[in-house]
């Protein structure tokens, strides 16, 4: 029996497991002690702890609020949600525009036209090498000073107004039959996908190309709009009352400054990723495309870019994550995203730094993991399938 035990001690596999368990135990013990110490110190100093503060009244106002109900009488939890939504809105807008600018600049960087090539290079070298915080402040002060005061707003058809405080748009009033509008949008999208599949099949079989843009416009864009008005819904127009515009949808100048700076900055990295992707595509591919009679644009769209994206997607994922995290620099200009609202104002009112910072970090962690999950799935789809 004893001999058996001793041989176990010298069994490589058993030893490996034992040591790993030991290592985990030591780390867990250390983490537990650190946590225990922290709680003890918090208790000794009489600092409030726990998450009860989330149900307390927030008591402060936020500047930017897109969809949610919020007033100073709302709870801290609602303020937290407003912060998350605002972070997501600026991140999604930033990712969208950074991708478009990045793609254009990345392709332009390899253009055969000297001027276009040089402009793209200058753009990348300038904006990539200036700290993002400075760029945010720069665009903010430009926006504040370039646009007129609310009384002299730039006016588009009495329904859209632009001034140094932001952009004011008509807002659809979401009540009554609104779900019918959503239903018509879903129907439109499904119908379009069906038509697109059909036209692709026709192309594969007969080589005839059908332009599906009119179908897209009528089904996905026009149908919901028609449905919207058909079901008696209305638009709420912004109007100047006293000091500010009231009603409508209000996109603040802080939102624009932050979103613009993030897009312009991140686009430089995306452009470089696209360029390296395009350069990785074998020249023979372009020559083959040209010999088949494809135009340059077709060759780029159908042959080069699909292959280039395989190389470009992993670094682009990183840039999307960076952009999302950089959105926390909004505190500098006062856009009410998560860090400004929650780990800024709420933290100060409540004072529970540990709980609030943990919640904030969890949100960023979740957003980052979701973005990388989505893009990794996309990446897998784009990879060459082994045959």
């Amino acid at each position: 029996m004893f001999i058996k035990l001793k041989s176990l001690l010298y069994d490589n596999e058993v030893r490996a497991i034992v040591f790993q368990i030991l290592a985990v135990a030591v780390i867990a013990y250390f983490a537990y002690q650190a946590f225990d110490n922290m709680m003890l110190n918090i208790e000794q100093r009489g600092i409030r702890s726990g998450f009860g503060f989330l149900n307390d009244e927030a008591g402060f106002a936020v500047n930017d609020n897109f969809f949610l109900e919020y007033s100073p009488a709302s709870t801290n939890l609602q303020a937290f949600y407003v912060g998350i939504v605002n972070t997501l809105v600026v991140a999604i807008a930033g990712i969208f525009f950074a991708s478009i600018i990045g793609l254009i600049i990345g392709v332009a960087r390899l253009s055969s036209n000297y001027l276009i090539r040089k402009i793209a290079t200058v753009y990348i070298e300038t904006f990539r090498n200036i700290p993002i915080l400075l760029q945010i402040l720069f665009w903010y002060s430009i926006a504040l000073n370039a646009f007129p005061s609310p009384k002299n707003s730039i006016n588009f058809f009495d329904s859209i107004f632009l001034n140094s405080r932001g952009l004011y748009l008509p807002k659809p009033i979401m009540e009554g039959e609104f779900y019918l509008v959503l239903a018509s949008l879903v129907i439109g999208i499904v119908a379009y996908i069906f038509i697109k599949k059909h036209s692709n099949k026709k192309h594969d079989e007969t080589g005839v190309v059908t332009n599906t843009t009119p179908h897209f416009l009528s089904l996905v864009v026009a149908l919901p709009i028609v449905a919207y008005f058909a079901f008696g819904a209305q638009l709420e127009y912004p109007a100047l009352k006293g000091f500010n515009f009231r009603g409508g949808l209000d996109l603040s100048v802080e939102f624009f400054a932050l979103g613009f700076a993030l897009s312009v900055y991140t686009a430089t990295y995306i452009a470089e990723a696209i360029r390296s992707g395009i350069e990785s595509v074998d020249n023979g591919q372009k020559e083959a495309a040209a010999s088949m009679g494809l135009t340059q644009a077709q060759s780029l769209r159908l042959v080069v870019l699909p292959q280039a994206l395989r190389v470009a997607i992993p670094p682009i994922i990183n840039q999307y994550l960076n952009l999302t995290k950089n959105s926390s620099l909004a505190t500098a200009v006062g856009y009410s995203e998560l860090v400004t609202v929650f780990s800024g104002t709420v933290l100060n009112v409540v004072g529970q730094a540990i709980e609030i910072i943990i919640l904030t970090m969890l949100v960023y962690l979740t957003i980052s993991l979701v973005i990388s999950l989505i893009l990794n799935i996309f990446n897998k789809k784009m990879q060459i399938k082994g045959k």
Partner: protein
Amino acid sequence: MNKLLKLSAVSLLTIGSFGVHAGIFHADTLKDVQAKGVLTCGVSTGTPGFSSPDASGNWSGIDVDVCRAVAAATLGDAQKVKFVPLTAKERFVALSSGEIDMLSRNTTWTHTRDTSLGLTFAGVNYYDGQGFMVQKSLGVNSVKELDGASFCIQAGTTTELNLADYFRANKMEFKAVTYDTSAQTKGGFEAGRCDALTSDVSQLAGLRSTLKDPSSAVVLGDVISKEPLGPVVRKDDNTWLNIVRWSLNAMIEAEELGVTSATIDNASTSPGIQRLQGKSGKLNESLGLSKDWSRNIIAQVGNYGESFERNIGMSTPIQLPRGVNQLWIKGGILYAPAFR
């Protein structure tokens, strides 16, 4: 194997003992400060008259003078202060984490801050209230006319909450534009991002004096809140709390006794002045300070009135009247508990 077992046993024990010991601590801020030879004091990132650095990095202001008074009392030298500029959002974490020994940064004494942050207010060195500055061109005379206006505010202040309270109580609408520092709120106000800037009245005067065109803005007469500003310390060290509280009280007491930095060393038969000079009484012992602690404060920093006039009085660009911040014997509410 044996070696490894011993090693892990030893490391477990070490971590374990660390865990147990770290839990029981004896906060002795005075000893730490005297060992370091310098007082680390949290101040604002630049509030004229309260705490702001000049071109060569020398800090001045009435908040700064409280730091200097504590340094004079504990280290015998009012210059031995390391100033840590903090935004409103950073200040409490900096104090409770031990990064600074005390906070003297125009901080409003509120119930929540005093009871749930593990901190304690040591007194009040300026009684303030929240006011408004508006562009003169708006022609506004009262806050009641500002329904629907945009306000530039500094994040993490009681100002944010008072503003919301006031507008809710009066059933008016407003838009808040929240910045990190008071310099940014001024920038936003100057650029026309907001119609009004709201902050403590004392700061409005200072901010207005630094506008490109001070005459383009007016400070409204309305005051919508009470903001008692004072120094803050951690809750775990009562002796240190007393040192900070009585350093401030010594300055107020000196003004009441008519003692200034110029006259503190004059011979006097008044028992009150003698106690302040450290020539009689044992006020130093329970604080663990040397006998001349209060004398050092007055000699090196001056009494409260001197500090006030030097930093924010009528002869400075800030031009604040004493108002309620006058001694109780002269009709104000400044009142140091009995110095005996």
